[in-house]
């Protein structure tokens, strides 16, 4: 665990370093490589027209850029090309560039996508691309959405660490074959990218709704033996903004870039809350 932590820390440091020219020798080399790539991109003749959202939380509009097409090119490459060769003021967010950190999600031609792993080929509409900040979240600037409401709801749904044992207690032994563990495993690869949150129409229409990612997190806790108070988990997802608002139309599941199924997790929460209510009534 600490090792993974260090590795992900390093990864974050690495990508920040790339943005900081002359920070140290290795990142400097990378910057040079990147410049070469950018130059070779400029030599390409085919272009596409990329509309990029510019503005802040109060107002904004689309600005169009002509961007050279490349055979292998992600949406994040396109945004980076614009920022590095056309307008250094363009704000956007990324870190890992390999689909692990969940920081690069944006609306691409109207659909939420992780831009670092979305190939232009797959989403280009004719020769146009429209890139905007994630839906259902306030805009900070340009392509940067304010993730606070998303993470606040994560906490509201009980998705923070609630210790139930001390260091003197034994670690519970959990076999990976246990049905609860197998169920939790289906949902734990969430990278917090908020793609599902942006895809969810219920979030759009009901500001209280906790949303697919936070509820899915609650589902993993409910299936986790190390969490003592399962009643508290169910209580948290049964309120005004809870799992019962979900319409089960499955946009979250359709768009989750990691292939997770929050809709199913929420269905699990719904039936668990009903079972608990019936037990209490009886």
């Amino acid at each position, binding site marked *: 665990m600490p090792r993974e932590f260090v590795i992900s820390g390093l990864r974050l440091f690495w990508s920040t370093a790339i943005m900081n020219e002359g920070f140290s020798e290795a990142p400097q080399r990378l910057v040079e490589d990147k410049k070469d790539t950018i130059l070779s991109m400029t030599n390409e003749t085919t272009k596409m027209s990329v509309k990029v959202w510019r503005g802040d939380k109060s107002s904004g509009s689309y600005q169009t850029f002509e961007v050279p097409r490349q055979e292998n090119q992600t949406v994040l490459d396109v945004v980076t090309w614009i920022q590095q060769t056309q307008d250094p003021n363009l704000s956007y967010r990324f870190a890992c560039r390999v689909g692990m950190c969940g920081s690069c999600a944006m609306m691409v031609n109207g659909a939420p996508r992780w831009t670092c792993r979305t190939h232009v080929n797959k989403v280009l509409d004719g020769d146009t691309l429209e890139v905007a900040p994630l839906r259902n979240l306030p805009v900070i600037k340009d392509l940067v959405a304010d993730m606070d409401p998303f993470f606040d709801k994560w906490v509201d749904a009980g998705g923070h660490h609630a210790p139930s044992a001390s260091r003197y207690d034994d670690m519970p032994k959990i076999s990976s074959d246990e049905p609860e563990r197998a169920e939790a495993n289906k949902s734990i690869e969430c990278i917090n990218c908020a793609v599902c949150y942006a895809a969810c129409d219920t979030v759009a229409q*009901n500001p209280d709704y906790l949303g697919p990612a936070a509820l899915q997190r609650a589902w993993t806790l409910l299936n986790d033996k190390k969490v003592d108070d399962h009643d508290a988990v169910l209580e948290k997802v049964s309120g005004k903004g809870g799992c019962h608002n979900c319409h089960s139309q499955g946009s979250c599941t359709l768009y989750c870039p990691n292939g997770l199924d929050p809709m199913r997790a929420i269905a699990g929460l719904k039936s668990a809350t*009903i079972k608990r209510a019936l037990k209490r009534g009886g």
Partner: protein
Amino acid sequence: MDLRLYIAQRVSAMVMIPLVFAHLGVMIYAIQGGVSAGEILSRTQGSVFWFLFYGVFVVSVSVHGAIGLRTILSETFRFRSLTLDAIMWTFGLVSIFMGARAVSAVTWL
């Protein structure tokens, strides 16, 4: 929507499913060859069965419709909590009242 409303809406839906089919089936069956108000009343008046059948139907439709309306007003028109509850209760109670009047009119002796 919270857990209570969710349960009320799902339970009323489950009750309604067989009743809707029976209602449609009986209508199609009874109407063959034409039917008059008098004929209908002669079958329903004084019938405990039809009283219970449509009584339960009216209650579940009212519960289901009122909660559904609340969701639409909340999600599509962004009404606030208090207004929502007021409209839900009014709509539900008025539906029950009107339904109960109709049921008693055709099943009472």
